[in-house]
């Protein structure tokens, strides 16, 4: 990466593939992309998600909030197939994906960033990023996409560093970069800015918004940083005790006294 390149180059992001997605984004947004139907997950006697109906429209940016232990991560893990549902179904693009293996779901355009970073510690940052990219890009294009993903993750200069040697926050950034590099239609982010500094939070907020607006990628974002949520979210779902507790536009949710009581606290 040459020093002359500036942030404005990010604007030139996006190969041809992405433009089709961007075109899509300008179109009808009401098409349901993801729908869960009565989703239940039990761990032993404990019910982590209880009859959850949750849906995401194409190109939507939805935040998922709720108290610690509400079942947010569990829900995302059910969607990706990391957990097997105890009951209920999951539909993606109109297809029932409940019984598919995780990799089959991912191949259909879902991607996820885990709550705890799980980058490949012994591989370089570059190798980490190549892995998602190589699935759909070759040669020159692959190189460009890898470089762009690293830059977008703010890790330029760290290409050859083993990912395990990055700081906690840098790993978070890499983790998001890899999830996005898959060029998904639906990107699930579990606490993307936890542990990030303020500047990084802003950069990531900006990035999420841009990916959403320009490329029509739909998002589900779990986050406890209320400012961040307020900054990016349109629609918010509140999970509580494994159930959908509230759903609506961010302003409405923020001012809901019940949500304040169980989640936001005092005068938030």
């Amino acid at each position, binding site marked *: 990466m040459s020093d002359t390149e500036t942030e404005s180059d990010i604007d030139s992001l996006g190969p041809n593939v992405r433009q089709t997605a961007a075109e899509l984004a300008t179109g009808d947004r009401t098409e349901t992309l993801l729908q869960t139907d009565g989703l239940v997950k039990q761990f032993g006697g404990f019910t982590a998600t209880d009859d959850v109906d949750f849906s995401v429209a194409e190109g939507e940016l939805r935040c998922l909030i709720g108290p610690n232990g509400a079942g947010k991560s569990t829900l995302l893990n059910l969607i990706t197939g990391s957990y097997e549902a105890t009951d209920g179904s999951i539909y993606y693009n109109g297809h029932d994906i409940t019984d598919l293996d995780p990799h089959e779901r991912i191949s259909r355009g879902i991607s996820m960033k885990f709550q705890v970073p799980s980058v490949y510690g012994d591989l370089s940052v570059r190798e980490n990023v190549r892995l998602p990219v190589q699935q759909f890009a070759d040669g020159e294009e692959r190189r460009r996409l890898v470089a762009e993903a690293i830059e977008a993750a703010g890790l330029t200069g760290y290409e050859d560093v083993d990912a395990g*040697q990055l700081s*906690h926050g840098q790993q978070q950034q890499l983790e998001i970069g890899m999830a996005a590099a898959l060029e998904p239609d639906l990107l699930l982010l579990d606490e993307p800015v936890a542990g990030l*500094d*303020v*500047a*990084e939070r*802003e950069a990531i907020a900006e990035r999420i918004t841009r990916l959403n607006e320009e490329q029509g990628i739909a998002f589900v974002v779990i986050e*406890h940083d209320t400012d961040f949520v307020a900054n990016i979210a349109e629609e918010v779902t509140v999970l509580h005790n494994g159930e959908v507790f509230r759903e609506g536009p961010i302003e409405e949710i923020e001012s809901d006294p019940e949500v304040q009581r169980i989640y936001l606290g005092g005068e938030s």
Partner: protein
Amino acid sequence: MMLELDSVTAAYDTTPILRDVDLSVEEGEIVGVMGKNGVGKTTLLKTVMGLLEPSNGAIRYNGTDLTTTSADERARAGIGYIPQGRDVFPKLTVEQNIKMGETIRSDSDETLYDQIYEYFPVLEERASQEAGTLSGGQQQMLAIGRALVSNPDLLLLDEPSEGIQPSIVDQISQDMQTINEDLGTTILFVEQNLGVIREMADRCYAMERGTVVDELGPSTIADEDAIAEYLAV
């Protein structure tokens, strides 16, 4: 002076991370450390805890030189630590994790349990659950509870609010202050959350590229924009 770092330099293998860090914490103080990702905040706390041996410089604790003392001895000498990213013992139950904290020191107090359960009722509810299966925020609460139960004299907190729901974040800041006042626990903490820093810290150090670049007094801390600048730049 309770804790004093005198031009401490530390490295992972051969890669130097901390460079000539000077820092001090007075007994009874709550001191924050802030800085962008990767500047070495965690490394600093690890070095204080003894998980990383400084290649240069000295660490003094209550006047005695700790530089070459092992981590477990420091723990028994009253330094408590809440690592970043929780690091609960995944295969021990919640209760056993807390017990691990308790067994550090002989003077730890049974009544602390009640207090911890009061702060974090979920820990009592899930006493026999394996800690590795707790949600992210619950694990963080456990890590805090586990450190508190040893009744440390100096508590090191690495981003305690990370992954915790807003209402409890507020509560934690308040609780820390209560603990600080009631038990006289000295606290050195790392945070990215502005609110928490403002709420808790008496004083604050700002780090950049492995070294302390500034010290912020109460007046600066009160100023939201000033802090934001340190964290953002």
